[in-house]
Structures are given as C-alpha cells and as structure tokens.
C-alpha cells in the first residue's frame, strides 16, 4: 500500500523534473505530453501500434526464454538451467508466446487495418478498445513480474491440475498465471466483441459481406471464436484461482473434484485459440499474396467459406489434445475424424493462394517473401497436424518433440511469419516510410532457415523417444546431433530478429518516403495518405465491389469514390479511464497473488470507481471541421 503511494508520487515527481517543475501549468503540460497522448488515445491506429509494441516487448522476453532452453538442450547432461527453473522457462515461454505475443501482435494489425479496410473512422467502441490494450499490457506485465517477485509459473502453459494446485506448485507462480491471464483475457474478450460490432455495423456503404477484404473476414471469424472460446477459459481460470486461493475443490481429488475437468475446459478454449492466432494470419497472407501477384484473390467465396468452416470445426476437436488420457475409443475416433476434417478447408485455402499466384505477376518484396515462405512452413506443419489426428500414431507422437515441431511449424509459420508479412506490408500506412527491403530480406532468410533448422530435427527427436518439457536427455541415444542442430537454428532465428530490430531503428531514423500507395494496393486503406490521418477518411467511401480501390484505379477515375459530401467529422475524445481502470485490475491482481485481500479489494475499488465515473460522465466527443481537413489533406 505504502509502496503504491510512493510509486505514484515518484512518477509525478519524474514528470515534473522532465517537463519543468511544479507550477500552475503542471497539469496542462502533462496533458500535452506525448506520453499522455498515447496513454489516453482512443485512435484505433495508435492502439494497434501499442498492441504491437507490447507484443514486441514480450516477444523479446519469450524469445530469450526459448533461447535459454535451447542452450540448455544443446548438449546432454548440461547444467545451465535445470529442474524447476527450466519448468518456469517452458511455462512462461508458452504462456508468453500464445497470450502475450501471438494474440496482441495480430490484434495490433487488426486494430490498425480493419477499420481502414471497411472504410470506417474508428472501431465501434473506441473507449473499450483502449481498455482492451491496457488490460493486455497490465495483465502481461503481471505475469512477467513473477520472475522478479516469487518465481514464475512452473506447471506448463497448460497448467494441468493437480500439478498446478498448491500442493504441488506451492509458490506464487501459478497465481500470477491465473490472475495475469484473467486480466489480459478480459481485454481480449472486449476486443473480440468490439471487432464483431465494428464489422457488422460500420462498413462503408456498398461493402456487403461478400465484398469485405479477406483480412476483415478472418478478423470477423476470429472475433467470433474469441467470443465463444474465452468464456470457458475465464471460467477455468476462476476455478483454478479459487482452488488455489480459497481452498475450493474443483480439481482436487480428495475434495471430490475432477482433475480431467481442467483438461477439458482448457482445451475447449485452447483449440479454438490455435485458430484465433492463425486465422488473422491467413487473412494477411490473402491480402499480401493477392497484392503482390497483381491478381484478385482466387476463389474468394470459397476462401470465406473455408474460414467460417474452420471456425466452426475449431470447437469440435479439442479432445485431440487428450487422446492419451484414456477417454475411450469412441470419443477418440469421433474427435480424430473431426480433426482430419479441418484439413479440407485448410487445403482449399492453400490451393487458392497458389492459384492466386498462378498467372500473376509476382513481386518478391519482403512482405511477399514472408507470405510465400509461410506456404512452405505452414503446409509442413499442417500435414503433421493430420498425422497427429491418427489416434494410434498419436499415442507415440503425443507429448514428444514431434508435437513441439508440429505446433512451432504452424505457429511460427502461420502467426509469426504472418505478422512480419503484415508489418512490412502495412508499415508505410502506419509511419509513412518503407522498411528497408535489403535488411528485410536478410531478416526473412535468417529467420526462415533458422526456423527449419530449429524445428525440422525435432520431428525425429520425438520419434526417437524424446518427450517434450524435459531439461535433459540421455546421451548415447542418437539425440545429441539433432539437438545441437536445433539450437544452432534457434541462434539463426535470433540473428534474424536482430537484423529486424536494426531495420526498425534505421527506418525510424531515416526511412524512405512511401507515398500513399507504395504496393499498388487493392483495398481502401491504400487510397489514404501515408501515414493515415487520424480521422481516416475525410469522406466515407462508396464501395462498388471486391477490391474497391483497385476498381477505382482501373475501372474508375483513379480517385476514391465518396459516399457523402465533405462535412464535419465526429471524433471520440481521448480517455484516461481505461489506463486507470487497468491499473486497478493490475494492483488487485498483484494483491491476490500474495493473498493480500486488502490490496486486492483496493484495486477492485479503483476499477469500480472508474466504471462509476464512466457511467455518469458525458462524453460528446469533438468535431473536425471540413476546413481543417482540407488543410491536412493538401
């Protein structure tokens, strides 16, 4: 409590030092500060960038964790990180990469691009959007603070009971996991709802569902998945939290609980989660491949259909994570068939991408390199996914390095390559400059080759009897060479990331001007100046078909068709409440981690106070007059 007050005073003090002392204008100056502007922003583009910054930071953390593990496994009987520390690393690596990297970076791109793609001025609920990003950041921070205070979660990112209960994981680690993810998950759930409402209600006139860009479509389906998959996670996390903090018995045997229940709940969320983080990437690839092949997407309707079908099937396959539990042959085969069925719509997508390129004029920019690299990696990861559905074979694959190889192929191939493709593609629209292509290509090749070198050998390690989540392996079982190769691959990937960071710095310092439409784009965002103005479209565009900007360029007069005359634009006003509210959740979570009910209650009090203020505050927003617009535009 005292610490908290000291911290707040300290921050105010720092603010004063850096801006010129305490005086009457202190508040005013604080409000004009760029930091304050970012903290209170409700602009979807800035929020998108915040998501990516946060995701990028956690990517560095999660990547370091992975690197440490690979260094430990470089040689048999290594003693670098062993036992429980290793378990903390593997738990945090998984948790971080799934919840704090994959989802946020994609949510970042979704936030940035989707409103632009549908010709909207913002998302439906800008306030909630800002709340989403701050909840994610504070939730992620909470989970990661575990490294400093008390030790990280050590029961795996899956946190299976009973290992995750107090009896077998007595430290505060799993508390951090439960509370941090609960907070971050709340933010994600809000974002999902927000995108659904935005896409349903805020499309520009003429943009029917079947004229939406594919990235918007995948965002739509992803949001629906979030809407249905996160509540089970929330429920599960609450049960685990109650078991740990309040001695309930949802998962303890002695109290009549059922520990397999956790596995069901977790995977009912966990499998759709896989598609939550891969579908948006599919959307990005569709945009990038079509743009750089100069062709419209091949089989657009079947692409949409396949996306929706994958979304449905995603909820019907969770037991394939549990074939070895002993649920019986009927359950196992039913879920095996459902799992195999997912290969069909996924296959449709892959062939549609290939035939979009077929007959096109392919420009291998960095974005396109990432997209085409994705096809290779993802197909290899996808086929092992089908193999995992073959129940008797899975009894051998399950929980071995074969599985590790499989899901890294799909998640790096899908999500991470997808994010990079999207970033190189949309960067000009975000910052008005072009990322350096030479460095970009070096980044791609190092990362791409590194990922194959890291994960391809792991298929064989698994088959040769190496289980996953082990900090050591026996020498003399032919596992040495493959593990060494795998570690070298991880180093290559790291090198790729370093090149990427260097590229970012270089571009931010002296990037090449991009111009409004550097790629000869097809969708609405490319009709805007770069960087996109904060009100997006001066006039809401009229959409005449799929790829509206392409139509306006090649079948119109080269100007974006407007659906309304120039007029004042209504904008939402900035809000500081989301930040304070998330801070409240953070403090509360931190309190509960250490069983301090008072701090926990205090944090929640802040949250409720914010909700109260928000409920009775009038927020009329503000208007941008047409004259001001003209000024910006020219």
């Amino acid at each position: 409590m005292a610490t908290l007050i000291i911290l707040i005073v300290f921050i105010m003090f720092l603010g004063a030092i850096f801006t010129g002392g305490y005086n009457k204008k202190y508040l005013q100056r604080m409000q004009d500060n760029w930091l304050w502007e970012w903290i209170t922003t409700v602009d979807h583009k800035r929020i998108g960038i915040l998501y990516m910054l946060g995701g990028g930071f956690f990517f560095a953390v999660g990547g370091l964790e992975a690197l440490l593990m690979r260094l430990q496994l470089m040689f048999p009987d290594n003693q670098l990180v062993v036992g429980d520390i290793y378990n903390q690393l593997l738990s945090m690596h998984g948790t971080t990469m799934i919840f704090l990297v994959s989802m946020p970076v994609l949510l970042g791109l979704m936030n940035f691009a989707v409103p632009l793609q549908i010709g909207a001025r913002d998302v439906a609920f800008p306030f909630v959007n800002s709340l989403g990003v701050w909840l994610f950041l504070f939730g992620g921070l909470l989970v990661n603070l575990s490294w400093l205070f008390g030790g990280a979660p050590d029961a795996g990112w899956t946190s299976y009971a009973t290992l995750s209960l107090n009896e077998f994981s007595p430290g505060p680690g799993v508390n951090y996991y439960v509370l941090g993810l609960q907070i971050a998950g709340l933010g994600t759930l809000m974002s999902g709802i927000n995108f659904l409402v935005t896409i349903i209600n805020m499309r520009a006139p003429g943009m029917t569902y079947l004229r939406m860009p594919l990235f918007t479509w995948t965002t739509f389906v992803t949001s629906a998945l979030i809407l249905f998959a996160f509540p089970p996670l929330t429920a599960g996390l609450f049960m685990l939290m109650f078991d740990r903090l309040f001695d309930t018995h949802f998962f303890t045997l002695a109290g009549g609980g059922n520990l397999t229940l956790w596995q069901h709940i977790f995977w009912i969320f966990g499998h759709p989660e896989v598609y939550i983080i891969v579908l948006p990437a599919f959307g990005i690839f569709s945009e990038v491949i079509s743009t750089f092949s100069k062709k419209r997407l091949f089989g657009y309707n079947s692409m949409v259909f396949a996306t929706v079908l994958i979304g449905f099937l995603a909820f019907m396959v969770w037991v394939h994570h549990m074939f070895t539990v002993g649920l019986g042959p009927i359950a196992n085969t039913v879920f095996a068939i459902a799992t195999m069925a997912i290969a069909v719509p996924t296959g449709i997508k892959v062939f549609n991408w290939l035939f979009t390129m077929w007959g096109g004029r392919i420009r291998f920019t960095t974005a396109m390199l990432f997209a085409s690299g994705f096809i290779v990696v993802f197909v290899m990861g996808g086929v092992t996914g089908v193999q995992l559905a073959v129940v008797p074979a899975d009894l051998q694959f399950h929980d071995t390095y074969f599985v590790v190889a499989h899901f890294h192929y799909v998640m790096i191939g899908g999500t991470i390559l997808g994010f990079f493709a999207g970033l190189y593609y949309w960067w000009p629209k975000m910052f008005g400059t072009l990322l350096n292509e030479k460095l970009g290509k070096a980044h791609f090749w190092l990362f791409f080759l590194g990922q194959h070198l890291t994960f391809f050998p792991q298929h064989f390690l698994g088959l040769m009897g190496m289980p996953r989540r082990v900090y050591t392996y026996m020498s003399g079982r032919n596992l040495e060479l493959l593990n060494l190769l795998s570690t070298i691959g991880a180093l290559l990937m790291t090198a790729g990331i370093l090149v990427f960071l260097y590229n970012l710095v270089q571009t931010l310092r002296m990037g090449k001007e991009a111009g409004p439409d550097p790629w000869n784009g097809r969708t609405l965002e490319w009709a805007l100046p770069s960087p996109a103005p904060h009100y997006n479209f001066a006039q809401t565009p009229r959409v005449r078909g799929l790829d509206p900007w392409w139509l306006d360029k090649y079948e119109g007069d080269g100007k974006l068709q407007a659906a309304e005359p120039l007029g004042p634009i209504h904008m939402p006003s900035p809000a500081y409440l989301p930040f304070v509210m998330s801070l409240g959740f953070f403090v509360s979570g931190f309190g509960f981690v250490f069983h301090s009910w008072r701090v926990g209650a205090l944090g929640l009090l802040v949250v409720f106070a914010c909700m109260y203020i928000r409920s009775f505050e009038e927020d009329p927003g503000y208007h941008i007059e047409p004259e001001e617009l003209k000024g910006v535009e020219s």
Partner: protein
Amino acid sequence: MAGFGLLTGCGSPHMSALDPKGPVGETQLDLINLSTGIMTLVVIVVAAIYIYVVIKYRERPGDDKDEIPEQVAGSKKLEILWTTVPIILLIILAVPTISTTFRGTDREPEPGTLRINATGYQYWFGFEYPDYQVSTANEVHIPTGRKVEFLLAAHDVVHSFWVPSLGGKQDMNPGRTERLILQADEPGLYEGECAELCGASHATMRFRVIAHPPAEFEKWIASRKQPKSKPKTEQQKQGHKLIAQNCIGCHAIQGAGYDILGRTGPELTGFSHRTRVAGALDNNRENLKKWLVNPQKIKPGNRMPGFDHLDDKQLDAMVEYLQTLK
C-alpha cells in the same frame, strides 16, 4: 545368477518408436508410416505447384511494370478437385485409424495376459505383480511373446507411461485406473519415460522394461519371492543397521528382517540387480553413494533427503549392503 546377464545390459537399450520390438508398436509404426506417406505426397504436390508458380510467374527485371495480369475470380472445377481429393486421402487414413483404435482398447484381456500394476510417483514408478505377490520399482520385468496388461495409476499428479519401442503412451491419472497393453517380442532392455510434465524432475523420471524369455522370467519371479537380503560381513551388518535407522520409513526391503516396509519411496529389494540408480545414473557403488549424499543434485525436487551428515564409512557400509541385495 548368470541368468540375469541381461540385467546388466548387454546390447544397447531400445528407445525409438521407429524401431518397435512388439506388435503394438509395430501397428502404430505402420500408421505412422502410412500417414507420413500420404502427407509426403501432399507436400510434394503442393511443392511442385509452388515451385512452378514462383519460377514461372515472378516479375523479371525487363518486364513491363504496368501490365496487369488477367483478374481471375476462381474456377469451379479446380475448387471441386482440391476439395474432393483431400477428402479421399483422409478417408484412406481414417479407416485404419478407426479400426486400430477400437482394436487396441476396451477388450477384456485375453487369457494368459500378465497383469502388472504400475503407479507413478513424483518422480519414480512402482510396479506390482498381483498374480505373484511380488513388487519392485523403476525396473519392470516381463516375459517375451506374452501380452502384458499394465494397470496404470498415479499417486500425486498426472504422469504418462511410455515405452517408445514397445508402444504408445497412456496417461496415469490420480484417482483413476487406466489400461495399457504392451508386448515385447525380443528379450532386451526397453527405455521407458514419463511423458507428462509432472514437476521439477520430470525429465529424469525414467524406468526400464526388461524382457526375458518366459523360462527366465519365471526364474526372476522365483528369485523375487525369496530375496536374499541378509547381511553377512561386518560392514554389511553395519549398513543393514544404518538403513534400519535412516531409510526404512520410506523404503521397503523384503526378507531383511525389518518390521517396517516403507511405501513412500521405491522398493529396494534385490537392488543389486537394478541397472540404474533412481532411473538417472548407472548402478554402481560410486553413483549410489553420490545419490545418497545428495539426491537433490541428481533429481531436483525429488522426495528423498540427502545423507551428507553421515560419514564416509557409514555411507560405504550402506552402499555395500545395498549392493548385496539380490
């Protein structure tokens, strides 16, 4: 006891799922191979199209930059093709998947099947032979050519019982009993491991399956029923006494005249025949002493305390005694 030559490990132990030594593992390998075959075919087809497209349609330096390729919307025929072909491939894969899954489980064990209860503890395995009233730990002996039904349970957290070269794994769930049927066709040593994260020393939670020809297996059972656990020399007697003072609360040694048979640690009867200490080190005097002095260094987080407060002589006496247990 020359009959137990195998125990001390001639030939290297088997650990690969790719080199199965029993019918269960063989069937599973067949399916691994079938699925790998089909999937390789898929990868080759995709790769061929991919390489063709990338080479044929890439923009070359001399190309007219403003030329716009034809904007094709799609093709019914092609789309139907790449929907039906995968479905056919999947059916080819699904049929054996279903039949094998049903064949493998949920059938009453055939007569003649050997039953073994296996229990997972953090971080070791206990084994009981209910038909013979014999028990052991970390190393389970089975006859070749005979089905073995493992009845799996867990004491604390979820573990998973996996012998890659004999067959796939089965989770060991606290509060439930699961069945797993395996069979070894050749005598030999088969590495087994825990395959579900179970705590700090999950990585070294290993066991061994030791398969003997049936006659030798019977001999082994007989020797287990009459364990030789009596100390003979002065040093052994001292060890016997020290173990009574320090160890038998957790460990059982049958036939040694102790009143208590501890159950929280692995049974040590016949310990000299073990090929390893705690599944982590080769079984010899040095390693055993290392283990007794500081088990936490070898398996972090395990439930056995270290005995570094005993002096060298005392440790040697216990080691000496344990290494005579037959």
